[in-house]
């Protein structure tokens, strides 16, 4: 129980006691129960309910960015069954009105597209409604489209993955969704930096996709989808929850609840003429209720994220789990480097270079226990590496490192190192640096 021994000057001053307590006081004094008081309370109650309904409608409308001048239902809908789409990458088969996707194509990606019979005005159809069957959580979903003014460019936007129910997405949040649209489609690929590409795919089906004209139903649907859609773990998750999901977002339930509950209490206090003590208790109760509601929502999201972890790793011994890493090709490259290192002294210096920091650090991690260092070692030294010991340089998918076979030198930007090639296979090159740089 929360006790409020003192009221705060930061809160409203109580104006009058409530009708009910005033009536109680009069009864205690032997006065006749005034029916008009009850009637007044009833009126106040009705007014409050109406005001709260308006408040929450406006608040949800603001959060959903629902256009004020539209009806609840969309005036126009462009409906396309899954079978209307063509498979561009991967393999699929029509299953009645659905399009079943049975395998992925190059780079573990699948793509389905639909050339519009005639170009549509993007502004007239800002709501995308889509439904899938058995869409795997291991895949990321994207919406792709072409505009008439840039027919060569494919615009891509991440979508919340759809579960068992239709999902909505507000394309008005996408700046590129403008002009005349000539083609739409969906792409799927393994969730980046989370799921190994070789085990990400499971068959699924595109049931339908619709484009809606502006409507409250569509906007609220997009808000609901944003709040409830499955969000996989991401590297960003340890830094911020919300931005870790890759699609454009609406205001969160945190801010909507905070504003809504505070405004509701202040409205109720004003209409029912409650005092500061009541307001304080109401704020505490609302905060507790809101907190638990958000916590239950968070636990649901956590369960969803954890379900994917269980799908990937449950029931496997540690050594098998340790090999299930999202960067499959880096793991393979690390294994190849290790083969080479087996013929070298265990403490040989190994320097790792790649075009992205992520690749450098991951390869560095995978190569342990080799005496390994990121390429920053060399970058920090520049040309002044007089004391440098002979070392191996592992270059992963980085064409900026250029080898001159005649000069037997390796060049990167302005630095040049005497080197020999040991391995040159696809994305992986291994050089032996012969010592000081020139």
């Amino acid at each position, binding site marked *: 129980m929360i006790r409020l021994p003192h009221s705060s000057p930061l809160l409203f001053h109580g104006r009058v006691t409530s009708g009910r307590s005033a009536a109680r006081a009069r009864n205690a004094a032997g006065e006749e129960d005034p029916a008009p008081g009850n009637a007044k309370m009833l009126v106040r109650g009705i007014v409050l309910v109406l005001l709260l309904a308006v408040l929450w409608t406006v608040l949800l409308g603001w959060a959903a960015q629902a256009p004020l001048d539209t009806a609840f239902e969309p005036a126009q809908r462009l409906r396309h069954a899954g079978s209307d789409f063509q498979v561009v990458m991967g393999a699929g088969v029509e299953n009645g009105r659905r399009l079943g996707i049975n395998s992925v194509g190059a780079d573990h990606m699948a793509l389905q597209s639909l050339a519009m019979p005639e170009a549509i005005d993007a502004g007239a159809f800002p709501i995308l409604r889509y439904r899938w069957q058995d869409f795997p959580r291991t895949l990321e979903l994207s919406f792709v489209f072409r505009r008439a003014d840039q027919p060569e460019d494919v615009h891509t936007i991440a979508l919340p993955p759809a579960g068992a129910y239709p999902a909505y997405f507000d394309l008005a949040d996408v700046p590129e969704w403008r002009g005349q649209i000539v083609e739409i489609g969906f792409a799927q690929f393994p969730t980046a930096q989370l799921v190994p590409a070789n085990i990400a795919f499971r068959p699924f089906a595109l049931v339908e996709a619709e484009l809606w004209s502006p409507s409250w139903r569509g906007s609220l649907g997009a808000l609901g989808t944003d709040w409830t859609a499955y969000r996989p773990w991401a590297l960003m998750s340890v830094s911020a929850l919300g931005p870790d999901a890759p699609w454009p977002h609406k205001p969160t339930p945190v801010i909507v609840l905070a504003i809504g509950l505070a405004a509701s209490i202040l409205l109720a206090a004003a209409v029912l003429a409650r005092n500061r003590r009541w307001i304080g208790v109401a704020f505490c109760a609302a905060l507790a209720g809101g907190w638990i509601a958000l*916590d239950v929502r968070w636990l649901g*999201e956590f369960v969803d994220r954890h379900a994917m972890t269980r799908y990937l790793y449950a029931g496997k011994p*540690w050594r098998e789990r340790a090999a299930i890493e999202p960067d499959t090709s880096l793991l393979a490259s690390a294994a190849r480097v290790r083969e080479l290192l087996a013929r070298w002294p265990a403490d040989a210096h190994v320097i790792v270079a790649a075009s992205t920091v992520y690749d450098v650090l991951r390869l560095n991690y995978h190569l342990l226990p080799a005496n390994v260092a990121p390429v920053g070692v060399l970058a920090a030294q520049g040309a002044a590496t007089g004391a440098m010991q002979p070392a191996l340089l592992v270059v992963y998918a980085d064409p900026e490192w250029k080898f001159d076979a005649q000069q037997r030198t390796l060049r990167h930007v302005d630095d040049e190192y005497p080197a020999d090639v040991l391995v040159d296979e696809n994305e992986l090159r291994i050089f032996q640096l012969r010592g000081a740089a020139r």
Partner: protein
Amino acid sequence: MTFAYVLAWLTPVLLGSAVVALLCGRPRTPAQWAHTLGCGFVLGALLCALAIAPLGRVAVARIVPTLAPILLPLALGAWVWVWLRPRASVAVVPAEGGRLHPLLWALLALLAVRAWLMMDEILLRPMYPWDAWAAWLLKPKAWMLGGHIDRFVGFDAWLADASGALRTAQTWSYPETLGRIAIWFASAWGEWNAAAVGAIWIALWLALLCGTYGQLRALGLARDRALVAVYALGSLPLINVHVALAGYADLWIAAVLAFACLAWMRWLQTREAGHLILAGLFAVMLPLIKLEGGIWLLILAATMLYERMTPRVRRIALALAPVIGCGVVVAYLLRWPLVASALDRIGLSADTDVLVQHAPAVVAAAAEGLFAQYNWHLFWFAVALTLAMRWRQLLRAPMLRVLGLFLLLGCAFLFALFVLTPAGKWAESYTAVNRLTLQIVPAMLVFAALLWREPRPTEAPVPPGARMAEAVPTAP
């Protein structure tokens, strides 16, 4: 699970709890046990990590077999001493109250559900978050797989080293305490296993909740309110993520900082030296965990010093500190020669015009992280509501005022870091603003929870209109 792994868990728990019991007294109630074991595990893990340092380039297989036979008897001896020593006075044991309200059971159930989720996530998933494999757990993995505690050095030394006994990394200069805790458990497990290492983070979460509950109870918060506070702390989504995706140092800083503040509060309340020593122990651990721990130590030490000042000196400090602070900021922004060059030397060099232009975006991003994203539920609204409703309690309790001052200075540090330095880009990208905030969230929650204590008979109300500085003589 091996005997060595069991020993690796027993040693920090027994060692740390023995130190806590020695300093704060033998636990008698469930709340006191929660405090002793919660704070004890964290302290014990840090002490075990420190104990590894003198071993030098030791074989990892020898770490626990070498240290446990020393540390465990010490811990057991301390416990025997705690149990047998005569007590000078009987501490006031807070009443535990009657049966728990069903709603509180529901809150505990919610905590239990997430504990299972986090544990299962840790046990299943290989090391996932970026800094876990790129920074904090890179060294212990290298040590474990290499078989020795090799020294990490700068790039120059590594490139020139012909012995092969030196290693380097992008984060070679980061404090190694967390890495040593990890190698303590990994070496006892016998191989590098992310689950065996990640389990430390769920233990840390449990220890944080237990330690906070025990200390809040000891500080006079009613049991039900303390449980609500513990639920609030344990349910914060970003804290849950830092447990489930184990490997970051921020939760360690958060727990150690909260325990330091709580022990300091106990000292302010009881003036028993043991609590101050415990607060000092936790505080000095801060820079050993992460570099910004040094800043928290500095701010905490300054606030503790402020609390010990005479009223006259306090008034001078209160008047001078904002003037000096604002002066430094203005001199920094206007690039005055002496101040600017000094700040440049410590890495705060920046184009201040650009910083000022970015300031609104940085503040907006920070506010979004605190109030509008999913990181903190309604925590920051709850803190604001608490301050609005319980400001009289704040006026009545001098110890809470100094804790509030520490948190205010901490928030000012974070504000200055993000708004006045190039670190603002980490706020705009959301990559650091919430993680750094996380470090003071448990201490902030403790502060807010203690404001919900019912007034103690000894805490006389301050007359209306009295300024805080003038209320100093009521400080214990």
